[in-house]
């Protein structure tokens, strides 16, 4: 659960030169950021690189963050842009999906886990973006709208469409087919 008060304090301290505070921000958000990047680009190794670069870019641009309490949403915007650039550079995606299966044994996902990741990758990018923002970063409709440059009402509709697509994809993959 992102605690905006804590983020706000840590951002403020980082701006005062306390790098330990930034380490706390990285520790708090790294799992969600890597997960979001993985979902967007489909490659776990690349997702770690994207997450690392996103944290570095966020650190460099921290002074431009108007609302420190919204660090998580702002960081997700950076991750989204980087993932889009990565996708534009590395087509076709099939290669990266194959690469996703080759990982260190200690962190290797189970076969079911990888299959579900691949199922999620079948969703269109626009749905993946909305799902990552809503479910991983827990952004509200207003924040999603701001990130996508649309109205809050439109964000609500997009969330609904993305959830419908997720349901269809999971049902098609042999999950709960009802609904």
């Amino acid at each position: 659960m992102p605690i905006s008060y804590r983020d706000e304090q840590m951002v403020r301290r980082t701006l005062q030169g306390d790098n330990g505070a930034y380490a706390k921000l990285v520790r708090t958000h790294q799992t969600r950021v890597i997960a979001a990047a993985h979902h967007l680009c489909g490659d776990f190794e690349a997702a770690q690189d994207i997450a690392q670069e996103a944290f570095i870019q966020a650190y460099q641009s921290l002074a431009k963050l108007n609302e420190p309490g919204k660090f998580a949403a702002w960081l997700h915007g950076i991750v989204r842009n980087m993932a889009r650039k990565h996708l534009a550079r590395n087509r076709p995606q099939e290669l990266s999906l194959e690469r996703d299966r080759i990982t260190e044994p200690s962190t290797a996902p189970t076969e079911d886990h990888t299959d579900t990741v691949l199922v999620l990758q079948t969703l269109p990018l626009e749905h993946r973006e909305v799902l990552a923002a809503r479910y991983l970063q827990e952004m509200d409709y207003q924040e999603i709208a701001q990130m996508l440059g649309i109205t809050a009402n439109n964000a609500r509709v997009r969330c609904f469409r993305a959830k419908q697509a997720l349901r269809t994809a999971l049902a098609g993959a042999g999950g709960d087919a009802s609904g």
Partner: protein
Amino acid sequence: MDNHEQWREAVSAYADGECDQAERAAVEAHLSECADCRQWLEQLQSDQEVFTETLMGRPADILDSVMKRVTEMSAKHEQPVARRKPMTVRRFVEAFAVVAVCAVLVSVLFPVFSRSKAKAPEALRPTAGLERKITKLEELPESAGEPLYRPSLLAERVAGPELRPKVDVVTSLPPPPAEPRAEPEALFAEARAKPTDRVVVTAGATTGIEPGGPEGLNFGARRPVQLAYDAAIEVWVKRLQEAVVTAEKTFYERGGFVLNSKMVQVETIRQPRVAEITGKVPKEEVSNTINDLAALGWVAQRELMGEDLTDAYTDTTRAITLTKEKLNKLDQERKKAGEAGHGAG
């Protein structure tokens, strides 16, 4: 709302905690009648679980690699700094005043610099950049002002950790009280059974400046260090409203006050409701306040941080002194002018 698709969209917003009061009541009424929408709500919850568990279930740690680069950037002075606002007329006037004050400070700093340059041992020598600054300062006429302590000017430029302000944390959290609390497992079990009952309270307590606090070594001299404390605690409780009222009361009972109390997330299905309370209490009550708040439920996180405000305190004190001196001078001139006027009359 007659269209079934519209109801499903409303249920989706309801699951995200994004409905207003009227829509929430309408959705709840509809859910009590429509089995199809109830199933849709359950599917949404189950899909979200599959989604987050799939993507977040793979451990990875980039902390070390990120912080290594952050440290490198800091060493090259590429760290972020607070952004400047566009300069308005008012800010221009303020900036002009600051420049004027700085000019005075530079002139009174001069004797301090010259002494430290002559006597400082190798490890305490200023860096090359500061040497250049000192050369420039030496061209200025010496002021008779009192030596001024300005660590903010020096801390970033002077080599050697000995000259950096040292902070002694004088307040530490005592061990938690011995009274039995609700077992986390019991709370988790209850939370799983009825997710809407799982709630979180976050509270922070900040002390004011502590005048005449402990001494720290600062620019080669022992100075009273001015400290402020920030404490934060995250507590999971069973009943949010009751916990919020108790937490707010705690601030008052400990001689402080509530700055801000807000509900961050209201009425969601899958996630706990969260209240954030920020308040201030006297320094000596920080530990007690945190312990009182900890007794509200199960403590998920708690933290105590000290902040050195010596630079800001010294700057402000100096600015007040200068302003008072200026005011006195003006007052004297006004009196003189008045006397001269009477004499002429």
